[in-house]
């Protein structure tokens, strides 16, 4: 098929979950998908407003792409769940990028709001397909393929994240990595996907963790039921879906199955700031013996060295604990 043009997807925010879906969809429709690279060596970031680090990265990535592509794909992600919603910053994200790019490139910003009928990811992509001049049947077929690919990608998630270098996890052409040797610790990494899997935010903490003998486990592997079960005793419903995922998976892993937990947040993240306080206090009050928890707050000024020291110390804590409680490592995935 002849190429119709180029669509740019900024490597930021929900790219770190839905990229496989988006990429296959646009490629099936005959478009070339271009993704921005990480930050340059000097780590220059451009931003409009004094927002959180992931938002600043979104603007930076979009500015890199603006001269290279015909369209920017940046859906307005209001809600990705039937009852719950995303952070309010996502609602204005396409507008912020539109201002930042000075209208130099058209932005495909169709609404995704699962709480309302007619705005599912599928319907949003079909609308985008229509804007790009594709026939409805073509779009539907493309989405079917994309969805199948995406589900398959999610199934292989744990292997990918553990066997591939972190920069290649979302490189869909990358060969399936080699099976890593048996690890001593199972560690749950909790946080927004755009914090955990973006090397510019997390400073490749996952790579370093793996080299320290930790097997990475993420909340992607948990079902919604398992997450909700942990949230039922709160006095009020947490209405951000990402926040639910964080609190729910954290309490889920607390009850066992892992040797430790690392909660990665970025400075100025409103959701994390509030929920962090809730988690800390709840843990303190429950008084139960639980695996150790490390909360790391990162921003554009964080250095790698400090992170490494803390991670090493964390491994020592887990080791100590294993000796103390004479825990045996249960092999399972």
């Amino acid at each position, binding site marked *: 098929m002849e190429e119709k043009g180029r669509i740019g997807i900024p490597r930021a925010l929900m790219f770190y979950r839905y990229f496989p879906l988006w990429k296959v969809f646009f490629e099936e429709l005959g478009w070339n998908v271009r993704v921005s690279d990480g930050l340059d060596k000097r780590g220059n970031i451009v931003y*409009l*407003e*004094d*927002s*959180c680090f992931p*938002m600043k990265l979104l603007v930076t990535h979009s500015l890199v792409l603006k001269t290279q592509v015909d369209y920017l794909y940046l859906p*307005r992600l*209001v809600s990705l769940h039937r009852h719950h*919603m*995303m*952070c*309010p*910053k996502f*609602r*204005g994200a*396409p*507008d*912020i990028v539109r*201002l930042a790019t000075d209208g130099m490139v058209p932005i495909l*910003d169709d*609404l995704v709001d699962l709480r309302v009928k007619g705005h599912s990811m599928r319907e949003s992509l079909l609308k985008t397909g229509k804007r790009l001049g594709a026939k409805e049947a073509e779009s539907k077929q493309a989405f079917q393929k994309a969805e199948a690919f995406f589900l398959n990608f999610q199934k292989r998630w744990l292997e990918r994240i553990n066997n591939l270098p972190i920069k290649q996890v979302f490189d869909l052409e990358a060969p399936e990595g080699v099976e890593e040797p048996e690890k001593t610790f199972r560690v749950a990494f909790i946080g927004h996907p755009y914090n955990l899997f973006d090397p510019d935010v997390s400073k490749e903490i996952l790579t370093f963790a793996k080299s320290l003998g930790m097997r990475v486990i993420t909340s992607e592997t948990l079902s919604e039921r398992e997450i909700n079960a942990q949230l039922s005793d*709160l*006095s*009020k419903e*947490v*209405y*951000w879906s990402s926040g639910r995922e964080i609190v729910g998976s954290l309490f889920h892993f607390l009850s066992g199955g892992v040797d430790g937990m690392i909660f990665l947040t970025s*400075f*100025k*993240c*409103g*959701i*994390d*700031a*509030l*929920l*962090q*306080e*809730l988690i800390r*206090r*709840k843990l*303190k*009050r429950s008084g139960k013996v639980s695996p150790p928890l490390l909360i790391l707050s990162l921003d554009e000024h964080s250095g790698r060295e400090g992170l490494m020291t803390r991670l090493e110390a964390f491994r020592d804590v887990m080791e100590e604990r294993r000796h103390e409680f004479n825990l045996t490592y249960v092999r399972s995935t």
Partner: protein
Amino acid sequence: MKVTFPHLGTMHIFCKAIAEASGIPYIVPPETSRKTLTLGVQHSNECICLPFKIILGNFIEALRMGADTIVMVGSGPPCRLGLYDLVQKVILEDMGLHYRWLTIPPRLTWQALWKNYEETKELKKELSWKNILLFPYGLRLGWKKMMACETLEKLAMRIRPREIQKGETQRRLKKALSMVDEAKTLRTLDQALERGKRLLQGTEQDVSRVPFKIAMVGELYTVMDPHINRGVEQKLGELGAEVTRSSWFSTHILRSLRRNKADQASERVRFFEASRAYLGYDVGAECNVSIGEAIVRAQEGFDGVVHLMPFACMPETTASGILTRVGKDWNIPILTLILDEQEIEGRIQTLLEAFVEMLQWKRKAG
């Protein structure tokens, strides 16, 4: 039972009136001070917004003074305000403070009523029939007091830039508000309001002055509470600017009761529509209104806009980014003030002085 509530502008005046008129014992938390803030900061996370910290501080102080029932306005998504109670409850429990919590629902839905019923079940046992019968009267008195406070504050905003002796209006306003506060019945309240108005109008004024017109927009808590914004409204007034704002208790209460036909509410709809050129979706809280109000004020010929927000506020961060562009497009100076727990009163004074000076140059030049 001893009821308490957080501070927000003149809210304590009418909350107190409701409790007093219906014979419910209450404790007004000590005026928000450095100590309040320190308490709030100490027991929360650095990136939680400033209103959370101050409200928490108010509660801690009130509970330590002997209050046992917290009354707090609830709110909904997507802003963090809607989950304040979830986290604050855990924090207070962790501190070993005992309390009961009563949420005033932001919107009257069945769900909210049910939740309220659950919460009040216990409390009702402690209330006498007299309390319940007097409550509607208390509400009416409270509403009237709220409107009286707003009338006085609006009057003071007009007089302040014209006063001859600096600070005179503020002194008189304080006195007038305390007269309203002291009124016990609806009849004496009317008299108190009249006396208060006369007192304010008695300020010596220079009517020949043409003050700058500045609109205050932004997150409602920072716009409405002089303790949080370190008296931006008063400072601007004393620098010779007539300040306008659209955030009042009545605006927000009428809005949540869905009385959209009221003038103030329809003003908000106008602001919202104006923001569409820049923002394609309702971001939540005051974000769209802040942007829209800045645009509308520019069209109305205002000299400047002051945008207030707490540090790391989720919706207003988006607004601040867009407002920079609005300022350029509409040729109106916009000053964004981000407020946090640091000692920033001096800095705010300097910023405001510079802002007003810039307006003076602008006026001279064109």
